[in-house]
C-alpha cells in the first residue's frame, strides 16, 4: 500500500538535503549528506512492512514462534550496518573539512574550486608539455624523415 505520509516526509528530507549539498559552505555540504543518508535509512526500514502496512507487527524477537507478524529483520540488519558506516563517512568528511581549512584557510567551496585547465598548475603542465602541443596542430618536426605528409 502506498505510503503517502512517509513519501512526503522523505521527499522533503531529500529536497532539503539536496539544497544543502549545493551550498558553498563545506560544513553545510556535510550536513546535506548526513540528512540524505538519514532519510535513505528511514526509507529502507519502511520498505519491509511500511510504517502502517501490517497492523500488529512486532519487533523481530522470536518470542511467539516463527509465524507471528514480525517486522522485517533483514532491512533492519541492513540499516544497522548503514548507520554505522554513515557515522564513519561523516567523521571522515568532518576531519577532511578541517584539513581543507588548515591547508587553504577557507571552507568556501567557490573559493576552493580550481579548474584543472586554468591556474598555476595547468600553466606549469603546459610548459612541460610545450613541445607536444606544437605537434598537435602541425606536422611533426621530423616529417621530412618519416614521410609525415603526402
Amino acid at each position, binding site marked *: 500500500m502506498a505510503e503517502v505520509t512517509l513519501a512526503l516526509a522523505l521527499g522533503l528530507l*531529500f529536497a532539503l538535503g539536496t539544497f544543502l549539498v549545493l551550498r558553498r559552505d563545506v560544513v553545510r555540504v556535510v550536513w546535506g549528506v548526513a540528512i540524505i543518508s538519514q532519510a535513505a535509512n528511514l526509507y529502507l526500514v519502511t520498505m519491509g512492512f511500511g510504517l502502517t502496512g501490517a497492523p500488529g507487527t512486532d519487533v523481530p524477537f522470536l518470542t511467539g514462534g516463527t509465524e507471528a507478524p514480525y517486522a522485517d529483520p533483514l532491512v533492519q540488519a541492513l540499516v544497522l550496518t548503514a548507520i554505522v558506516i554513515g557515522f564513519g563517512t561523516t567523521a571522515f568528511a568532518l576531519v577532511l573539512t578541517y584539513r581543507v581549512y588548515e*591547508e587553504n584557510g577557507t571552507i568556501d567551496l567557490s573559493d576552493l574550486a580550481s579548474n584543472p585547465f586554468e591556474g598555476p598548475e595547468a600553466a606549469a603542465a603546459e610548459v612541460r608539455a610545450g613541445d607536444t602541443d606544437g605537434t598537435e596542430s602541425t606536422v611533426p618536426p621530423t616529417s621530412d624523415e*618519416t614521410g609525415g605528409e603526402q
Partner: protein
Amino acid sequence: MQPDAGVLVAALALPFVAALLVPALFRVLGQKVAFFAALVAAGSFGLLATQYGAQGAVQLPWVPSLGVTLTLYVDGLALLIGFLASGVGVLVFTYSYGYMAHEHGHVKYYATLLAFMGSMLGVAFAADLLALFVFWELTSVTSFLLIGHHQREAASQYAARKSMLITVAGGLFMLAGFLVLAFAAGDTAAGRTFVLVGTGESLIANGDAVREALRASGLFVPALALVAAGAVTKSAQAPFHVWLPNAMEAPTPVSAFLHSATMVKAGVYLVGRFRPLFVPDLPAVPEWTFLLATVGLVSMTITAILAVGATDIKELLAYSTASHLGLIIAGYGLAGAEALELGAETGAFHILNHAVFKATLFLVAGIVAHEAHTRKLSELGGLRRDLPVVAGITAIAALGMAGVPPFNGFWSKELLFETTYVVAKANGGLFWLYPAVAVFGSVFTFLYSVRFLMLFFGDRPAALGDTDIHRPPLSMLAPPALLAGIAIVTSLVPQVAIDIIVQSATEASLPVGLEPHALKLSIPKLFSFTPYLGMSLLTVALGAVTYPFYDQLHAGVRRAREVPVTSPNWYYDTLTAGANPVSRRLAIAVHGGAFRTYAAPFLLGTSVLALAGYAATDAVPVDGIGAVPSAPLVFVLGVAVVGALAVARAPSHIAGVLMLSILGFMVAIVYILANAPDLALTQLLIETLVLVLFLLVLDKLPAYYGEIRTRSRAVADAALASLVGFTVFTTVLVATSASPDDPIYEFLLARAGVPAEHGPFFADHGGGSNVVNVILVDFRAFDTLGEITVVAMAALAVLTLVGMRARTEAGANEAAERAPAPDGGRPDAVVEAADASGASDAGADHDATDAEGGDAR
C-alpha cells in the same frame, strides 16, 4: 584432424604469461631477455606446428548468457598468420638483442612486443567476432606503445597518437559491422550468433541465409562497408595510409614485425576471412569487388608512387608495405565466377611472400641505419663493399618486391595480373582498368625496389664520407639471412610454399561448398607465354626504361604531395587541431572543479532518468492513499522535517548542528515506532557521537558562509532540490505499494531461532531470539566484517589527517611533501603549502589562520 583446445590455448596464452614475467626476468638476464622472448615465440610456433593440418573449431564458454563463447578456429589461413606472427617473432626478438643493445626501456619493449604477439595470434585464431575484436584492439594498443617507444620525443608521440586514432576508429566501425552481422543472423533459422566460422550455426556456415537476411533489411552494403573500414584502416589503405609512414618512429625491429609482417596483415586477414561470407555465388561482379578490389588497386598505386617520393629508407618501406597490402586486398577483392579462386590464391600467396621479403628488407634497413647512422636515401650508396652479405640478402628480397621473375614476389603478383585479366576479359568495358592500374602501380613498385637495392651499389656519396661501417653482429644478420633463404626456396620452387601452407590458406577464403583446384606453379611455366606473363614483363621493361628518370620522378612526387587539399595528412592535422580546443572547452565545462558542478548534473540526471522510467512504465500507483499512520508517527516525522528545515536555514554552524541532532533523534524515535529497537539504540549512540564530533571540529572552523550570493542560484538550487524531492516522493510511493511474494526474511525468520530439538532453553535463557542480531553475526557476518573494516579505515584516515596537522604545525617542508595522498589529492593545496613553508615560516602561517578561525567564530 580436429584441433586440440589445450594446445591452442597454451599457444595463445604463452606470450601473455611471458610478458608478465619479463620485468622479473630482466633483473636476472639483463638484455638476454631477448632470447627468452625468442624462445617463447619459438614455443608458440612449436605448439601451433603440432596443429598443422588441423581444421575445425574449439569452443570455450565465455559469457554464456549472451551467447558469447571463446571460439577458436584453425585452418590454413589462421595457421599462416599464426606462423608468421610467431616465426617472424623468433627472428625479430633475436635481432632485437643486437639492435636494442644501446637503447632504453627494454622491459617495456619486450613485454609489449610479447603481448602484441599474443594478440596477433588471438586475431588469427579467434572465430568469435567479439573475441576477434578484443584481440584486434589489443594489437592497436600494443602497437601504440611500441610506436611511442621513444615516449619523450614529439615525433613519436605524434606517430603513436595518429596510428591509435586511425586504427581504433576503424576498429569501432568494424565492431558496428559485427553487431549488424550478429543481429542479421538473428533473423535466420540458425539464430543470433557471434561465431564467424567453424560451427554449424556460424555466420559463414549459414552464409546464404545471412546474406538473404542482410539484403532483406538493406544492410548488406553497410555491413560490408563497416567491416571493410576496419580492414582498410588497419592495413593502411588509402586514404588511411598516412599513419604507417609515421609509425616508422618505432624501433626498426618493431617496424619489421608489426608494420610489415604481422599487425598490418590483420586487415588483409580480415578481408580473407570474411570473403566467403560476403562473396555470393552469383556470376556478376559483386559489391565486394567494387569496393575492395578498387580500394586495393588504387591504394597499391598511390602508395607505390609515394614510395618513390620517399627520402628515408624506412619511409620508402612503409609506403611500399601499404602498396603491397593493397595488392593483397585487391587479390581478395577480385571475385565473381572466374576470379573466385584466383583472387584467394593471390591474397594468400602474397601474404606469405610479402611478409618474407618485407621483414627481410626492414631488418636490412635496421642494419644500414645502425651501422651507417643515417636513413637518408641520398646519403647512402655503395654499401656492398662494407656489407657484402647484407647486399646479397637485399638483392634477393628487393627483386622479389619488384616482382622480377622468378623471385618470390613475382609469383603472387603474376597471380594478381592473371586475376585482373580474367575479370576484365569476362566483364569487359571499364573493367580493363583493373589490369591497367595493376601494371601502372607495379611499375612504381619496380622503381622503388631498385632504388632500395641501389643503396648497396654505385658510389659511396660524399655525405657518407669515410664513416667506418662495421659488419652487423650475428644476431642481427642471421634473421634476415634465414628469411632470404626462405625467399629463395619460394622463388625457385614455389610449389613447396603452396603445398605447405598457401593452398590450405586459399581454401579458407573460398565460399562454402566450392571444390578447390590445386594451384600449380613452377619455373617451366615461365616458358609458355601468357597475357599475364606479358604484363609482368611489360612492368619490368617500363620500370627499367623509367629508372634513369628516378630523380625527376622523386622530385615531382615530393612537389605533388605538398598540395594540402589532396593530402590526407592535411585533413588529419586540421581535424585534430580543430578538435583540441573543443575538447579543452568541454573538459573545462565538465571538470569545473567546483563541487556543485559535479553534484548538480548528477542529481538532475538521476532524477530525470528515474522519473522518465516511472512515466514510461506507468509504475506510479494511483489507487488510493494508504492508511493514515498513527498520530505519534506523523508528529515525529513532522518534527524531523522541521528539524531539517531548521538545519537548512541555520544562522550559524552551532545552530545547524543542534538542529541536525534533533533530526537524528527524531529518526531514532521513528525506528522505535517501526519496531526496530536495535536501530533506535544504534542511532541514538551514533547521533550523540556525531554531535560531539561536530562540536569538536566546528571549534576549529571559521564561522559562516551561509549567505547565498545570487537570487538566481537560490532559485535554481531550490528547483533542483524540489525535483529530487519529488523523485524520492514518487519512488517511495512506487516502492511501498508493492511487496515481494516470497520475501527473504521468511527464510531468515524460520532459521534464525534455536532449533526445536534444543527446546526452549536457549531462546528463553541465552538469547538468540533477536533475528536482527543473528543476521548480523551469522547469516551476513561478512557484511558486518566489511562494516567494521570501513569504520577502521575511516578511523585510520582520521588519525592520518590529524597526524598531518601536527606535522604541518611543526612547519617543516617534509609535511608538505608527505601530504598529498591521504587528503583526497588536492595537489594545489600541497603546492601552496610547500610555497608557503618555503617562502616564509609555515608554522607561523598556520597559527595565524587558526587564530583567525577562532576569532571569526
